[in-house]
């Protein structure tokens, strides 16, 4: 079994696939550049922070290097280093950070130290007393190295000595990271706040658009009244005006079409009346018995066409645009049913049908709905007409009016063959007939449905055991 996707899922899919929502577009255009700028700012901040961290560490390394260099004293041909004091100074700096040192005489003669450190890359003769700073790797650990060339001995036996002190870069990176963190966090908060403000702004700015959309969406498909444009902001007004022009054009063309149907139906009435009268007359005269059935068929066809034309006009009248819209009144369904049923009794008798009313009696309270009396009457007449046409001779047709919750209900039941349940939906379509018996045209229930819906009501069909059909019109009770 397939379950329909939830509204949320639909929305998500739409957002991922990308619909042309103005909200999204605006948000994207406002927030995306901010995000790019934010990333650039973070990058710059990180680099600046790293540079300052390097500088601080370099300074401390240099200090330590100079201190170490000072402890190296030439004694005769050798060197004396007051090591413990110097080492204390250097290593005691930070217990977390690995600190290495090396004293050597270039090129590469190790004198003392905790580790062999890479020498600085020189582009010329080493400069005395000038510090060199560079990055290197020891034990696969990134390090920062400060190097200092120092000369010792007299001018004749002058020798060079390289003092290097290195420190793991963990500390430096940590410092840079903490500076970055301290800058980026408030920045992120700001971005978030900004996004929310922007979102709220977009929503507020586009609210009229949403209102207009709701206005158009909530419309019945046949409601072609113009949109209200007073409340719309400047930019939307032209759009609303264009829409209204379009609606007016559609309205005009629909109205023209209806007028045409109306006029055509009216024009057909007189010739049909003539045809009917002529065949009626011919049937009453003595005609060749062989021709009689033909004539009978012509007559039936004329009767049927006449019915169709009348039904087409009823349908046109049931449309919301019809002029009857203004004549809304309180209608007592009970009284209406009594009147209409009484009117139809002679016709029912002619068809051999027992038409009656299931009435709660005079004492029962009226069932009052607000609506167009002629249309509601038309709906009930159609139901009775249908029942008489299709139930077949010696059936019973019963009209019943009752109250059901907030609805006034009119029911027409018959003891005819009924309509198979799978056709219950289709018979409300125009020109769909459940049977090809009888002389109907397939518009009756479409008219009833149109009228019921126009009054905010419903029509439904129910089968009756052992056979028969009940058609129910439920209309909201008048307040």
């Amino acid at each position, binding site marked *: 079994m397939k379950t329909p996707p939830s509204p949320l899922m639909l929305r998500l899919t739409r957002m991922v696939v990308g619909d042309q929502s103005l909200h999204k577009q605006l948000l994207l255009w406002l927030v995306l550049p901010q995000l790019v700028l934010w990333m650039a700012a973070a990058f710059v901040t990180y680099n600046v922070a790293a540079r300052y961290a390097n500088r601080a560490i370099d300074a401390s390394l240099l200090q330590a290097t100079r201190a170490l260099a000072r402890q190296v004293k030439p004694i005769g041909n050798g060197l004396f280093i007051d090591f413990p004091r110097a080492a204390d100074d250097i290593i005691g700096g930070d217990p977390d950070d690995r600190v290495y040192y090396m004293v050597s005489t270039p090129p590469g003669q190790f004198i003392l130290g905790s580790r062999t450190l890479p020498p600085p890359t020189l582009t010329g003769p080493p400069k005395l007393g000038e510090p060199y700073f560079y990055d290197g790797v020891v034990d696969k650990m990134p390090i920062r190295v400060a190097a200092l060339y120092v000369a010792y001995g007299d001018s004749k036996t002058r020798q060079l000595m390289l003092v290097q002190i290195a420190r793991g870069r963990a500390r430096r990176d940590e410092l840079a990271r903490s500076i970055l963190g301290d800058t980026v966090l408030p920045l992120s908060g700001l971005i978030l706040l900004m996004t929310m403000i922007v979102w709220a702004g977009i929503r507020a700015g586009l609210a009229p658009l949403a209102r207009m959309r709701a206005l158009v969406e909530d419309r019945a498909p046949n409601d072609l009244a113009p949109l209200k444009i007073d409340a719309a902001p400047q930019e939307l007004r032209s759009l609303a005006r264009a829409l209204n022009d379009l609606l007016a054009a559609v309205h005009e063309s629909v109205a023209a079409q209806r007028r045409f149907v109306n006029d055509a139906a*009216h024009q057909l009435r007189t010739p049909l009346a003539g045809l009917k009268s002529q065949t009626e007359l011919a049937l009453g005269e003595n005609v060749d018995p062989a021709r009689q059935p033909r004539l009978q068929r012509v007559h039936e066809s004329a009767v049927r066409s006449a019915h169709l034309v009348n039904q087409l006009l009823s349908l046109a009248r049931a449309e919301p645009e019809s002029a*009857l819209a203004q*004549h809304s009144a309180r209608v007592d369904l009970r009284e209406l049913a009594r009147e209409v049923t*009484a009117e139809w*009794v*002679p016709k029912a008798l002619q068809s051999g049908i027992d038409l009656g009313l299931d*009435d709660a009696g005079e004492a029962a309270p009226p069932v009052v709905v607000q609506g167009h009396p*002629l249309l509601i009457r038309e709906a009930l007449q159609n139901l009775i007409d249908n029942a008489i046409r299709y139930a077949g001779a010696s059936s019973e047709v*019963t009209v019943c009016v009752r109250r059901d919750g907030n609805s006034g209900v009119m029911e027409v039941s018959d003891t005819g063959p009924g309509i198979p349940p799978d056709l219950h939906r289709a018979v409300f379509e125009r020109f769909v007939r459940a049977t090809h018996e009888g002389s109907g045209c397939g518009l009756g229930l479409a008219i009833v449905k149109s009228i019921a819906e126009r009054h905010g009501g419903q029509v439904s069909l129910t089968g009756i055991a052992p056979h028969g059909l009940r058609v129910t019109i439920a209309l909201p009770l008048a307040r």
Partner: protein
Amino acid sequence: MNLLLAEDDAILADALTEQLRHAGFETEHAPNGAVAEFLLLKQSWDLCILDLGLPMVDGLTVLQRVRQRKPELPVLVLTALDDLQSRVAGLNAGADDYLTKPFDFPELEARLRALLRRSQSSPVANASMAMGSLVFERDSRRASIDGAPLELSPREWTLLDLLLTRRDRVVTKEEVAQAWSSERAEPGGNNSIEVYIHRVRRKLEGSGLSIRTVRGLGYLLEALRPA
């Protein structure tokens, strides 16, 4: 009874004229509004069937003009226009009845006869009615079946009178009760209507008439179809 049929559709007019003649109306045909107006004003008519969409002078105008001179003439408007506005306009212009095309001839005939009954207010015309083998004479308050006098109590009389006037149409119990109270017949409740219907039914046996009970509504007097 002479009747003027003002109808511009020749085929309909032809058939209708013939049908009306069969039904016993002396029928003249006017093909347009001008002729209709002329004939209506010049001659004396018992009835007029008027189409609204007539050429030269439209039906509504004819109706208004004729009404001023002949307020008593019963006019039935027969038209293709059946919306509310047209009906109101027709009735306002002085139509006595309104029937839309296409129509069933029996209905047209019934309505014409009803118009005649209403217009011929002279008691003589209305005095006696015959249906089946029943003869009902109002002024002498005598009724008979096949010549044999029929004994009717005042309430039975009122009941049968009502049913006869409204033959082939439903008479509700409320209408019976109303007729009784306005005629100041003997007092009685609503439930006694069944009793009287039962009695009248028995008295009508053999007259070719039958009173049919219409569920939930009332009663209807019809002529039994020859079996």
